């Protein structure tokens, strides 16, 4: 479904990614794991179009998307939930969700999705009219994921949903992701919480210093010596 081919990317004076290759099939739940500064967020930003790749190509549903602006990539069915969430803090929760459905023009469909989202995240339903800026950390993450879901995407890119959350909230967020995956959504998850991530995903890529160094089934990776040493602290 998503195919990242030899992508180089980075910022003005700094190249972060060096020839990244990632391939994800429809319905898979894939993790991208690596240390701080390895280029995980850069990878997601490049896929979602917020950063232009310096080289290589990205295909989504067999269509070239690496030359499209971010809003057109969203239109093609790829939704990105960023690390800093990028919520509209002065809008209430329901308006944030409405904005998530910006690309959908069918009012009825928006309403249906919204009801589905409220079912999935009852917490958000309770705080419908609260400004997004006044939500707690966990609620914000939920809202960001929910907003990402509002455009009825075929694939979701999620960047470090566990960052700065209390453990029980992390579990909530992961459960939500698992449910979404169970309903057929393709997910690429970036995480530092390696243990929990390898637990719920099908496959994983390990990225270090801008290069993919390992990939494979999550279960196998959890037993891999390098992974155990570096990430699991065993």
């Amino acid at each position, binding site marked *: 479904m998503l195919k990242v081919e030899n992508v180089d990317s980075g*910022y*003005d*004076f*700094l190249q972060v990614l060096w020839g990244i290759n990632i391939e994800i099939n429809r319905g898979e739940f894939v993790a991208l794991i690596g*240390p*701080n*500064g*390895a280029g995980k967020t850069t990878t997601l930003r490049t896929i979602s179009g917020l950063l232009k790749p310096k080289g290589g190509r990205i295909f989504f549903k067999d269509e070239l998307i690496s030359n499209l602006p971010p809003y057109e990539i969203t239109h093609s069915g790829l939704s990105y939930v960023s690390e800093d969430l990028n919520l509209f803090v002065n809008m209430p929760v329901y308006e944030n969700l409405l904005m998530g459905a910006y690309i959908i023009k069918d009012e009825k469909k928006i309403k249906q999705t919204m009801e589905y989202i409220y079912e999935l995240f009852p917490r958000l339903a309770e705080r419908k009219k609260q400004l997004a800026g006044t939500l707690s*950390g966990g609620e914000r993450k939920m809202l960001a994921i929910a907003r990402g879901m509002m455009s009825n995407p075929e694939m979701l890119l999620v960047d470090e949903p566990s*960052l*700065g*959350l*209390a*453990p029980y909230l*992390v579990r909530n967020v992961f459960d939500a992701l698992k449910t979404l995956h169970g309903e057929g959504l393709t997910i690429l998850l970036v995480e530092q*919480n390696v*243990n*929990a991530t390898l637990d719920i995903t099908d496959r994983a890529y390990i990225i*270090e*210093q801008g290069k993919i160094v390992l990939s494979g089934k999550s279960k196998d990776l959890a037993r891999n010596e390098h992974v155990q040493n*570096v990430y699991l602290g065993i």
Partner: protein
Amino acid sequence: MLPISCFLPIWTSLNHALKCKGIRMVILQVIDMVKKFGGLTAVDKVSLQVEEGQIFGVIGPNGAGKTTLLNCITGAHKPTSGIVNFLGEENLAGSPPEVMCKKGISRTFQISRPFPRLTVLENVTVGAAFGAQSHARESAEERALEALEYVHFPLPEDTMAGHLNAVQLKRLDLARALAGGPKLLLLDELAAGLTEGELADIMKLIKRIRERGITIVIVEHIMKLIRGVCDTIAVLDYGKKISEGKPEEVMRDPKVIEAYLGE
């Protein structure tokens, strides 16, 4: 089991005795610091005591108020209430940052703040020329060069600071803070985004800085670094200090495990 507080008077008097002998002096003392932003209490009655020559770590989850605490100490924020004593001077809370810097507190920033259209050398010279031990321009430049060498800055000095990447900027920030000749150095997430090798390097560097007689307070995420260099750490959660002590002890504190280390 006796409660720990029973030992407090003994500990205090012991500490006092040691202090009288000049063995360890308290360089920075924060008492009941409170900082509110509107309705949110970012720092809630935090007290700290940093002894001279110590490496003191402050850890906690994102949004626990670590950076805010640091800002309150350096004067970047005016604390709502609380006391800051530094080097024998009492109640410095609320002094502007430039005054705190002149008194000997230098800092680095979580998100580096370079002067983008100055060269690397000029950036560090600013620190040297206006810091705690300010001198005339020439000697400031020399000390800037020395500081750059000290932190092993990898690029030529005439590179524009705006062209550096995040990791290099952190080094630059550190060099600028060091060039001011501080007594106390506050490091805000210095190691974020470093690779393993660089992390070991920076840990060595922090220890070397301490050997120069500079006391260090580190705010950090990365446990490896905290465990590797800190003598004492304090743990913040939702603005409150929930634990303090030697790293190994604190790591075993169930409160800390619940709040921070998680699963």
